[in-house]
């Protein structure tokens, strides 16, 4: 099957000599919901910039549904929609005009562009704001406006660079639902995000990029299986004066009603609860201290640093 996105040995050295990408390779299959993760400055936005032609690559190749961007970029662009990290529309134009005009840039007749504009503005809850200048929108509305604009030509591959940054949780969840719907309808989605909960909830496959290199590229399920430890916060019914005996577990007292315990792979939670119960401590609730993917992400990057130090 032809990959929705195929990146081979992609390199980028900026004019100041900074090597942003050191020859990365990965593929995204059609219909996938794919996460591209990495810390700030890892090379995510450079990769997206190259895919959509805003950044010129130094070496390597990029194909979108089999169309090499070096051979037929206009055709590749027709297959691609991009929601960038920064707002990049005229603040003084009206919402409707911004979206419909983008359709024109893709060669869509005005009537069709207006029809699609209405469809996506309604789906993204912006129809009431269609005659408002973009600068009057809230941050969340501006993000949704960029999603509507990216969808106007109904691309087969949609790339979103931190689409929910600065968006409140209610709106974030409604955007997730919307993205899941269009993914279910067949649109391949690549997402970069700092909210790892978002990646874990939405995405099936993942690539982690750090300092211009891919450090992990697998399914989220198999990645989570490699998680060697999880840290839990336990809420206790009793008021605790000091840290209890955690037995073979690593733990600490957070406050008089909560404990933090690290559970290594192979250790049983039953053993922990039994030990605490024997000391007269009953646990009323428990939760992960951090999102599981977040924990894994941090440990992966830490491993990278250790290897570099050697």
């Amino acid at each position, binding site marked *: 099957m032809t990959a929705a996105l195929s990146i081979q040995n992609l390199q980028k050295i*900026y*004019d100041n000599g900074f090597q942003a990408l050191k020859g990365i390779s990965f593929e995204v299959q059609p219909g996938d919901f794919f996460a591209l993760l990495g810390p700030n400055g890892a090379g995510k936005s450079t990769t997206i*910039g190259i895919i*959509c*032609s*805003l*950044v*010129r690559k130094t070496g390597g190749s990029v194909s979108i549904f089999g169309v090499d961007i070096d051979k037929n*970029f*206009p*055709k590749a*662009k*027709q297959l*691609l929609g*991009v929601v*960038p990290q*920064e*707002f*990049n*529309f*005229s*603040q*003084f*134009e009206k919402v409707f*005009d911004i979206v419909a*005009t*983008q359709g*024109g*840039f*893709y*060669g*869509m*007749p*005005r009537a069709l562009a207006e029809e699609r504009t209405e469809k996506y503005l309604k789906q993204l809850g912006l129809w009431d704001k269609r005659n408002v200048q973009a600068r009057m929108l809230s941050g969340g509305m501006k993000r949704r406006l960029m999603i509507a*604009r990216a969808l106007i030509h109904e691309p087969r591959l949609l790339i979103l660079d931190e689409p929910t940054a600065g968006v409140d949780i209610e709106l974030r969840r409604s955007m997730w639902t919307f993205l899941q719907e269009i993914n279910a309808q067949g649109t391949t989605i690549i997402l970069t995000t700092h909210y790892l909960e978002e990646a874990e909830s939405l995405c099936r496959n993942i690539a982690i990029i750090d300092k211009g290199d891919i450090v992990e590229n697998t399914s989220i399920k198999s990645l989570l299986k490699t998680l060697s430890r999880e840290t839990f916060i336990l809420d206790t019914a009793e008021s605790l004066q000091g840290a209890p005996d955690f037995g073979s577990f690593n733990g600490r007292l957070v406050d008089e009603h909560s404990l933090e315990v690290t559970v290594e792979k192979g250790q049983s939670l039953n053993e922990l609860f039994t030990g605490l119960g024997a000391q007269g401590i009953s646990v009323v609730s428990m939760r992960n201290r951090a999102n599981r993917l977040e924990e894994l992400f941090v440990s992966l990057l830490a491993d990278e640093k250790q290897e570099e130090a050697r």
Partner: protein
Amino acid sequence: MNSSAIWTSFSTILRREVRRFTRIWPQTLVPPVITMSLYFVIFGALIGSRIGDMGGFSYMEFVVPGLIMMSVITNSYSNVVSSFYSAKFQRSVEELLVSPTPNWVIMAGYVLGGVSRGLIVGLVVTLIALFFTHLSVQHVGITIAIVFLTSVLFSLAGFINAIFANSFDDISIIPTFVLTPLTYLGGVFYSIQLLSPFWQGLSKLNPILYMVNAFRYGVLGVSDINVVWAFVGVLVFIALLSAWGLHLMSNGKRLRH
């Protein structure tokens, strides 16, 4: 993109450009009209009546074609330079760069947007001039051709200025320090026959002199220079600036990193 899609994309850019300068008409259309009206009143009616004839015409008749051309030049240039630089500044130019619209269509759309504003302002200034003097165009074809080509040329120059600009200061340097002096010294207000041979020779190095005189020839039938050279010069400059603009768009580092 097929030709129909290219036409759609071009007309979309042009429509957006026209929408932009008509939306902010108090900034784009009114100031040149007021400025030119003042020129007509002061240089044409008040001072001009004491100057007497120039090139065989009353001073008002002589100065009107130059002032029309001056407004076309400055408005064509400033429309494109401010619009395209604003698009760069707000990053809305990325809407076009990520689309399949070819670079030459993007440039043509912006340039025709500048031409639209230049010609609209030129037309309004012409209508105002009719309150002050009588105008009968001697060579309609030459008049229309030279004003259109001049507008294209300065729109292209504005486009290139915008590509190079890194700040709003950068888009006012060329108009202030290059365009305005060349226009004022380009035979708008006087015939170079009044100058000594040395200054006449120097004036003939000013490309705007040729455009202003070609337009004056179209309207009044008189010119300080051979009109053919005006058309040759304008067409050569259009070809050079078009090639430069396209090169900057495809290979330049100012739009794509």
